[in-house]
């Protein structure tokens, strides 16, 4: 029977495949493989829209003028700039530039390149339009000195300059590649872009002439693996060295993290993030039960914050006490006392004082999609039920949720923000300035002269100490208005093989720089 022979042959060949080559083993010890969920978008500062994979690659191929000092990320240090001064009115930023730095194509880095890069981003990158439009003029004082003049004082500008959109590009390479620069990015960074295959990988190679010293790795391969369970299997079998939990809206289940913790080949890095997730009220709504501050307070006291962190997140999230996370340099320690504590009895009392019958509150609790948000919503729903408030969960796809939110067609919703730059401005101004209420997923704050003035003043004050004090005030002022219940801040989690060393995870995106990373 020939068919049987064929079958037998097939069965025999499958194991034979296992005898495949294990070549290039020595190459592996200096090659880092990073699993990412999707292809990077906009691999150059002029097109980057804060998409996480592309942003991270940009910061490894390019350099910015300034960067946050690891591992705290509370202080800026010079990168391509050695020092800088800010004029008394907070509008002029003068940078002394590092001498002798060369782009990866051999052309020299100088003040003209800084002017070229920032003006280019301003012209082409719609994502940063609002902030880059503040740039009035960029003057080349000398090859190693550049002066940037803004139309209004904006101290967070330095933080914007540390973002991938502000990275310095090689003008010669832009000239050479034109529209195809994103496929051939050239900067001064520790790694040189070697190539990308759609839906497959992006390959970077070490830049031996990097001005801070050649990186320890010789190669980084970003592997595009869309499925989360496949990423996990690849990590466990050693196919990849690093898996990031990037995600505005999703995270890995707590059980999976527990399982990976038991694997001694895998190390889990956890860092506090600046992401805030909250139950927010439609603060712009003049009527309805939530126009009464006591009802809002009642809801905030009804939630078992620690239970949520433990039960749903198994320790992979942290408490948030107000509009800023505890790791922000502007966090007001007093917020820890001001923040509501779990007290259902007090919640019921507050509702009674407001003369609101809890059973009359029939809420639609809007939320993002995904099992994690589902779990959070269910937890909150149970907490509300304990004080007699009925809530129906409505998980909605992001664009639809955004439409509901910006048009104000809700009473309560679960929402959150990951700031795209490292400054309190990124949470406070967009979240609470009343003139921006309808422009994005915000707290939809009603017009309030005191708070609005305070927010703008904090945004524009140049003196760091004065600015910090202003943000302290802002936080207390916001707490009085009870715009929502601050639920949790998910930690940034990176899974890595145990032999990877030196990785520092940034608390605000983009996450990782690989210059200091090595493999044992």
């Amino acid at each position, binding site marked *: 029977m020939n068919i049987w022979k064929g079958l037998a042959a097939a069965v025999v060949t*499958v194991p034979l495949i296992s005898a495949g080559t294990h070549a290039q083993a020595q190459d592996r010890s200096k090659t880092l493989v990073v699993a990412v969920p999707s292809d990077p978008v906009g691999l150059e500062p002029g097109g980057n829209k*804060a998409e996480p994979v592309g942003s991270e690659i940009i910061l490894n191929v390019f350099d910015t003028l300034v960067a946050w000092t690891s591992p705290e990320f509370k202080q800026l240090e010079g990168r391509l700039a050695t020092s800088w001064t800010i004029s008394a009115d907070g509008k002029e930023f003068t940078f002394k530039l590092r001498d002798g730095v060369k782009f990866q194509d051999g052309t020299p880095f100088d003040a003209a390149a800084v002017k070229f890069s920032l003006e280019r981003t301003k012209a082409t990158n719609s994502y940063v339009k609002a902030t880059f439009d503040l740039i009035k003029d960029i003057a080349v004082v000398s090859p190693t000195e550049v002066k940037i003049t803004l139309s209004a004082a904006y101290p967070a500008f330095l933080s914007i300059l540390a973002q991938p959109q502000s990275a310095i590009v090689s003008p010669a390479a832009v000239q050479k590649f034109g529209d195809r620069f994103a496929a051939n990015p050239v900067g001064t960074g520790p790694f040189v872009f070697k190539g990308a295959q*759609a839906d*497959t990988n992006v390959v970077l190679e070490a830049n031996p002439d990097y001005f801070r010293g050649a990186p320890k790795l010789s190669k980084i391969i970003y592997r595009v693996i869309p499925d989360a369970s496949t990423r996990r299997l690849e990590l466990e*079998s050693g196919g990849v060295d690093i898996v990031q939990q990037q995600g505005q809206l999703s995270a890995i289940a707590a059980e999976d993290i527990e399982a990976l913790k038991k694997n001694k080949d895998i190390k889990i890095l956890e860092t506090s993030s600046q992401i805030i997730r909250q139950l927010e009220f439609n603060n712009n709504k003049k009527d309805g039960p939530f126009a009464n501050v006591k009802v809002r307070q009642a809801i905030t006291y009804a939630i078992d914050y620690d239970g949520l962190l433990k039960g749903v997140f198994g320790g992979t999230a942290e408490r948030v006490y107000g509009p800023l996370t505890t790791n922000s340099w502007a966090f007001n320690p007093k917020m820890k006392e001001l923040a509501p504590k779990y007290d259902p009895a007090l919640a019921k009392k507050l509702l009674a004082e407001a003369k609101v019958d809890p059973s009359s509150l029939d809420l639609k609790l809007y939320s993002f999609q995904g099992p994690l948000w589902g779990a959070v919503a269910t937890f909150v729903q149970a907490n509300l039920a304990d004080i007699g408030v009925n809530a129906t969960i409505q998980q909605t796809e992001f664009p639809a949720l955004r439409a509901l939110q*910006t048009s104000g067609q809700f009473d309560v919703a679960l*929402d959150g923000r990951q700031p795209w730059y490292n400054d309190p401005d990124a949470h406070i101004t967009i979240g609470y300035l009343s003139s921006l209420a309808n*422009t994005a*997923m915000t707290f939809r704050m009603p017009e309030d002269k005191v708070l609005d003035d305070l927010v703008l003043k904090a945004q524009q004050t140049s003196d760091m100490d004065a600015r910090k004090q202003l943000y302290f005030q802002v936080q207390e002022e916001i707490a009085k208005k009870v715009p929502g219940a601050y639920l949790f801040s998910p930690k940034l989690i990176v899974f890595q093989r145990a032999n990877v060393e030196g990785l520092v995870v940034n608390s605000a995106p983009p996450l990782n720089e690989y210059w200091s990373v090595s493999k044992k």
Partner: protein
Amino acid sequence: MASFIIRRLIALIPVMCIVLVIVFSLVRLIPGDPAVTLLGPGAAQEQIDALRAQLDLDQPVILQFANYVFGLLQGDLGFSLKSGQPVTNEILMRLPATIELSVLAVIVAIIFGIPIGVLSAVRPNSIFDHITRVVSLIGVSMPAFLLALILQLIFATYLGWLPVSGRMSSFLTAETVTGFAILDGIITGNFAAAWSAVQHLVLPTAVLAAFLAATLGRFVRNTMLDVMGEDFIRTARAKGLRRSDVVLNHGLRNSLLPAITVIGLKFAEMLGGAILTETIFAWPGIGRYMFEAIKNRDYPVIQGTTLVFALIFVLTSIIVDLLYGVLDPRVRKRME
């Protein structure tokens, strides 16, 4: 024959037009603005408006449709909203990976499915028949993602014989000539790359082939049983033909006709299954490309990939009809 093919190809035009109109309006009915989706929750209205203008999404839909059709007539499927690259190129780049996987899966399914069906029919209700019946039932009813996970766990994580995912080891550099990884490896003399491509193909092919092989096996068994009860089989036996002659030349040949229809239909269905398989195995084909595009509301990509899938579907059915002609003289006569 030639006039038959030409007639069928002309009939293709209205079909594709209908698919185009449906898909063009359907993607715009899915709630969610691509600009909102691309920028994510942090974006302000100002940023979204700027992106909408940049992507020409602020134009009237009729105008967008006219522009699209105009481009399509010149073979231009537009530009991806996400990457800004021409969709035609992006699809052509990914098509070989999908074809490699699905064609191989069909071949594997035929190699396993038909003999199993024949053997089961020759000895109905034997132990072999019972075993294959159970295995087929599992093959048909097990969801692809579960089978994929089980195979990954056993052969990649536990035994370490095969890679978990991907199309080729990321440590190898391979030149692209045709886009078919194994073929390219052989052409360029890079046998390590070709071998790596073979290894990476095994698991996704098995997952994709399992369903078809199981369906085919049961189908061939049933039609074979019917055919083997026909008068002409009895006549053949009465003439004293060898048993293998009766089974293969008379029985199998007559059972193959309906089997080909099943293979054709299932092949088209398999392309749908490829969306899932390609995502799980990080396989860079058009199924996964389409899936990502739907998530991102990347209209031109959804339209382009749907048109390609529709085209493959229609072409497959034409090929099935032609094969009928090859196998059945009566049909061939009618075609002429």
